[in-house]
């Protein structure tokens, strides 16, 4: 932690008794939150706990109803985002606010463009200043490159660079690793360490407790808009944080009530997708959860897409119950009893402006229509029964799906696939971006589905999840299957070794 400083300088930000109500709901109720220079302060809580409301108040997106904010000992009012920027508070969003077709440096100095007389821009000065910041961050990218040409990790570093190009004492990072590869996460952590050493304060908002344990100095837990506590990370265990977040100990994250049979349901033979998947063969049995893992870009996601007909394959056969099926589009796959839960539910899983019910029947319209006419009663009772069965929290099935929390949205996507009555469910990152409580429920559902005899092919970049959910695991390396492992006998280390090409067959 930071060295002791004179008391009045220790806190860059002190928020006291912050209260914020929205019509009908108390989003924040007397929350205290302080940030010390040179610390990484994690802000955790389930969806709706008030983390984002708190960070929005600090960055001037919302204004507080009551409470006091002090910056370096001085009481301040933050009424809009500009106020927050002037006070040295910056936020790096989960979804980047970069302009893709502009260069790195133009993005970094966006708000300074046009400030000179006649709207002129000094690209020389801009390039020099951009280079300095990028160099310091260890990003070897020319300031003239277009943002659209960069990887996700590089784009995020550009966001950080943009934040650092102005005076910033506090940098808020909202789910910064959501879209990063392991190597990129490592680099981000390196950058955070250096920012901390420079005396900057980082507020780190994340669902990923492993990361918080690794990087944060202190942790503040919110639940239902109230402060549960602020503690040094060294005094906490992962389970204690979970307990603080959900208000009770989670009984058991993972359950295994299923009994996989030896009946082969899915056979994939010599599947090849040019440039992505090379000669992959795998089998899955009735009632089995098969994990597919590897480094980012090792091809595991592409295998699922290829099996689902969403990626064109150059060779390979797919057999369902011994019968070869021709799958050239998702429509073919669905008719062969295959469903794919994609890793990005907002882009590929849901029609956000439509209702819960419409989303649920989307992939199986033919089951609720007769000669092109919708059977409303049947559609509604199907939706109601999934809401019950999956315990989806929504005011009604007519609610627009964009207003549901991430976990409930994910369950709607799952219901959409269950409605197609698939034998085989491909799941890509089924717990991405959902909170701990919802994760446990998704785990339980996966076990239940397998117990009903369905085949689950699971891709996840969270190794503990893969190991604890699967019965068998295929580890991929550079587009090939590097190993097939028994999930009950393997370890993260063994998977890691195969996943990095450590053993070769």
């Amino acid at each position, binding site marked *: 932690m930071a060295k002791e400083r004179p008391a009045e300088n220790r806190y860059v930000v002190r928020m006291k008794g912050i209260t914020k109500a929205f019509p009908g709901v108390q989003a924040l109720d007397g929350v205290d939150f302080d940030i010390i220079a040179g610390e990484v302060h994690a802000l955790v809580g389930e969806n709706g706990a008030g983390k984002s409301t708190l960070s929005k108040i600090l960055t001037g997106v919302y204004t507080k109803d009551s409470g006091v904010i002090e910056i370096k000992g001085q009481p301040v009012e933050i009424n809009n985002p500009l106020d927050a920027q002037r006070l040295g508070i910056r936020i790096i969003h989960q979804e980047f606010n970069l302009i893709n077709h502009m260069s790195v440096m133009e993005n970094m100095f966006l708000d300074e463009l046009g400030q000179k007389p006649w709207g002129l821009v000094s690209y020389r000065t801009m390039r020099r200043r951009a280079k300095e910041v990028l160099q310091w961050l260890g990003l070897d990218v020319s300031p003239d490159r277009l943002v659209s040409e960069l990887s996700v990790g590089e784009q995020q570093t550009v966001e950080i660079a943009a934040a650092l190009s102005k005076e910033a004492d506090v940098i808020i990072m909202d789910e910064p690793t959501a879209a990063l590869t392991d190597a990129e996460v490592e680099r981000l952590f390196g950058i955070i360490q250096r920012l901390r050493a420079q005396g900057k304060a980082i507020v780190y908002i994340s669902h990923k407790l492993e990361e918080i344990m690794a990087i944060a100095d202190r942790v503040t837990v919110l639940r239902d808009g109230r402060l549960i506590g602020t503690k040094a990370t060294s005094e906490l265990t992962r389970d204690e944080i979970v307990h603080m977040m959900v208000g009770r100990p989670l009984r058991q994250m993972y359950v295994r009530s299923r009994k996989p049979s030896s009946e082969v349901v899915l056979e994939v033979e010599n599947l090849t997708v040019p440039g992505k998947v090379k000669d992959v063969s795998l089998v899955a049995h009735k009632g089995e959860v098969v994990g597919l893992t590897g480094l980012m870009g090792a091809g595991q996601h592409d295998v699922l897409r290829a099996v689902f007909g969403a990626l064109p394959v150059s060779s390979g056969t797919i057999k369902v119950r011994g019968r070869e099926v021709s799958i050239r589009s998702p429509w073919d796959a669905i008719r062969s009893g295959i469903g794919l839960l994609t890793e990005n539910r907002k882009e590929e899983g*849901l029609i956000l402006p439509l209702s819960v019910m419409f989303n649920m029947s989307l992939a199986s319209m033919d089951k609720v229509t007769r000669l092109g006419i919708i059977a409303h009663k049947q559609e509604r009772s199907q939706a109601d029964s999934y809401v019950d069965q999956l315990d989806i929290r929504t005011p009604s099935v007519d609610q627009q799906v964009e207003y549901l929390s991430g976990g409930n949205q994910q369950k709607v996507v799952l219901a959409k696939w269950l409605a197609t009555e698939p034998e085989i469910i491909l799941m890509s990152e089924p717990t991405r971006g959902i909170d701990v409580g919802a994760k446990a429920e998704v785990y339980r559902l996966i076990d239940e589905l397998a117990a009903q005899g369905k085949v689950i092919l699971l891709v996840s970049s969270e190794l503990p999840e893969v190991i604890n959910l699967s019965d068998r695991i295929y580890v991929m390396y550079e587009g090939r299957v590097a190993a097939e492992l028994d999930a009950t006998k393997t370890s993260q280390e063994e998977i890691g070794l195969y996943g990095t090409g450590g053993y070769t067959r």
Partner: protein
Amino acid sequence: MKAVKRLVSARQELLRRYGMLLVLLVMVILASFLSDRFFTTANLMNVTRQVAINAILAAGMTIVIISGGIDLSIGSVIAISGALGAGVMAGGSGWVAGLLTTLAVGLAFGITNGLFIAYGQLPPFIVTLASMALARGFTQVYTGGRAIQVSNQTFQWFGHGYISSIPVPVTIMIVVYILGYLFFKHTKLGRLVYAVGGNEHACRMAGIRVNRVKVAIYGINGLLAGLVGVILTARLFSAQPTAGVSYEMDAIAAVILGGTSLSGGRGNIGGTIIGALIIGVLGNVFNLLNVSPFYQDVAKGMVILVAVLLDRLLHAGGRTIRKEVDSGTDKAESARA
């Protein structure tokens, strides 16, 4: 907590849904004060007949816009379908052949648009801009720039006849809107129009054959343009090479006034008819007051801007409030979890 939410969103919803209806009512009341001729049977008949053509086109345009597309070609498609239909009749065929030809040409143009948009993966704006020019060009070439007279009296009935004292075009409009309502509420295709407009990629990943849906959408729109081709030809006793110029703009204006979002996935056909009536009443009032048509266009432009701006404010207000309240429900729910 839920009650509060329902109250807030209910009031917003009410304003959003009936805001434009309110605008229309105010306009009608103002109109009846401004001109004592407004509330005469003859005038009301006249207004609705004028509105009918735009309203029928706007119904099709509603489908296209909800699906996330746009169709600029319908004005020209009216002309080409009318010209070919009139040509067939001028060549000695009966009114049935004329009617079917006109409709078929409209449908064919629509389907062609759809094929290029869906399978050629081209932006609707560009495809329909091209077919707008193409269809107009064909019309000029085919007619040699001159009108084709239609003397068949049965065919003229589509523009001048009455069905129990309601003008035929108005009857057709009413039928189109009833069918449109049923289409969106009860058919699979109607549902898919919203789905494709809301998130095309997610539709493909859910196994929806999006290309077929698009072809159907533009086909329906072309067919409706053909239907207007019939009415217009009948109304004018002839097919004019310049028929339907800029009709697509009035149709788009009616759809937008009706509260349908140009970004797709949101909107409803009930709003569109109100939008079309607003435009129609506005024109009628100016005519009654003998205002120059030049000023009419200025006024129309301003009304569209103001109306859409109002709608935008209401809409944005409604959304933020709902969003915030909803994150609250999440909270209450995770508390229960």
